[in-house]
């Protein structure tokens, strides 16, 4: 693969694994898979359906679920919306209070803001300074009218892992539903919806070396959990998500999730070693903070605050690296990442922070080049910004 710059933004999106692309191409080129997977009355429809069901089993297997509990969507944003609105609008009679954290993805926070406008009350928990929301915090926030807890498994900006298993146990004991946004988890950490007692779990393909535009929502089947759909129409996916199923996208997601399961441990061990080398190299410039818990984190994300440099200059100086800032906007807006600010970082430091996220195709040479760029540019920028008295 050739890149115009060094790609260290895997937490934003991943390249499609060539093996996934091959599976999708075969699906698109085959003479007998273009039928509508819902056209069960003829052979071509049934062949497409078989591919969809194979992928459903692959995705279910990656999270320890039964295939019939998987609903195809367009991605994690839709999955989150379906989970949150689906529960809230159908089960409002059981309570109108929802608990979440301040460091959730916008695809959870914004639907919840909308639900607040519709009469729901939402408690936004502030995580500990290490980014972790403790089960005790959740327990304290639960009320008799709490309907749902929504907590992400792995934070997209800082990579910390929430103890969703403990939260699952707590919610099950208290009769509260648990939704987990697992967009960043698959292929990085173990996910088992049964063991973790998760009722709803959002997934997406494009963070797992699959295509963009396809995702899934796990919906607990035993006992069955009913949701109100977002889309109405042909009644696909048991009426939960109308719309013709995109066979090739689904095949890609299935293949990607199968690889994520089989290669997770090898990927994680390699990435942990590369990430540790990167952190060692970055730390050498001094006056840097690692954001998020140093232990309870995924292997591929490193979020670092650089003291003494201005955020936009830092990003431009490192433009040979494709990395993310938490900043909302690179010019004009001075608002730093809301996730880092929730951890207690001040605005200025939140702006001078970068997320390096590694992935399956990151090489040692990429890491060494990234270290060289940081070690060259950060001291240079500090020299320019060092305003002597």
């Amino acid at each position, binding site marked *: 693969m050739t890149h115009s710059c060094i790609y260290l933004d895997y937490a934003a999106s991943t390249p499609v694994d060539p093996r996934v692309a091959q599976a999708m191409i075969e699906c698109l080129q085959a003479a007998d898979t273009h039928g509508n997977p819902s056209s069960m009355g003829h052979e071509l429809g049934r062949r497409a359906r078989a591919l969809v069901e194979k992928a459903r089993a692959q995705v279910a297997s990656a999270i320890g679920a039964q295939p019939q509990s998987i609903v195809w969507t367009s991605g994690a944003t839709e999955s989150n919306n379906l989970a949150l609105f689906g529960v809230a609008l159908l089960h409002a009679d059981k309570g109108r209070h929802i608990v979440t954290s301040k460091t959730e993805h916008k695809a959870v926070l914004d639907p919840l803001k909308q639900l607040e406008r519709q009469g729901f009350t939402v408690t936004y928990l502030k995580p500990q300074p290490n980014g972790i929301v403790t089960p005790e915090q959740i327990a304290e926030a639960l009320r008799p009218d709490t309907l749902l807890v929504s907590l992400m498994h792995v934070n997209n900006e800082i990579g910390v892992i929430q103890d969703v298993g403990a939260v699952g146990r707590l919610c099950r004991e208290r009769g509260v539903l648990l939704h987990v946004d697992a967009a960043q988890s698959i292929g990085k950490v173990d996910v088992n919806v049964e063991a973790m007692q998760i009722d709803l779990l959002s997934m997406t393909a494009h963070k797992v070396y699959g295509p963009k535009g396809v995702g899934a929502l796990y919906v607990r089947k035993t006992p069955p959990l009913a949701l109100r759909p977002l889309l109405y129409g042909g009644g696909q996916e048991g009426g939960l998500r109308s719309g013709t199923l995109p066979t090739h996208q689904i095949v890609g997601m299935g293949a990607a999730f199968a690889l994520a399961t089989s290669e997770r441990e090898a990927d994680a061990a390699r990435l942990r070693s590369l990430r540790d080398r990167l952190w060692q190299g970055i730390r050498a410039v001094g006056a840097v903070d690692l954001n998020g818990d140093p232990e309870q984190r995924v292997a591929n994300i490193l979020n670092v605050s650089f003291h003494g440099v*201005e955020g*936009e*200059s830092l990003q*431009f*100086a490192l*433009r040979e690296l494709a990395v993310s800032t938490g900043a909302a906007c*690179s*010019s*004009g*807006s*001075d608002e730093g990442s809301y996730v880092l600010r929730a951890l207690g970082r001040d*605005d*200025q430091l939140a702006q001078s922070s970068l997320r390096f996220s590694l992935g399956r195709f990151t090489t040692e040479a990429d890491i060494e080049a990234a270290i060289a760029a940081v070690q060259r540019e950060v001291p240079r920028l500090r*020299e*320019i*910004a*060092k*305003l*002597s008295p």
Partner: protein
Amino acid sequence: MSDPGYSDLVAEHFDRPRNVGALAPGPGVISGRAGSPEQGAEFRLTARVVDGRIAEARFQVFGCPHCVAAGSILTGMLVGKDRDFLRTWSWRELASQLNLPTAKRGRFLILEDAVRALSDNWEKQF
């Protein structure tokens, strides 16, 4: 354009800024400072005055790439100028030269304040 948000001129002066630093205080050395990181930029200018004209100038800035480029270009431009130049200098021409986004105008007004502070310091010293 080396980057959608920055012109080649900004990139050139950001990557290889001229006149970074500060002149040590001493006879004929003037300084001016304005802004703060919270305001989006903080500039510090120093210059050596010889026979009523600026002989050399330096800058430091906590700011975005446009601000770094502005400090680099401005300090080059100051050499040979008299105090009237500092008193009347406006940020607008430099902003246009660097294709400054509208949202960042406030940062160049801070630079103008730093130039005025340099001028005031000149008046105080001579």
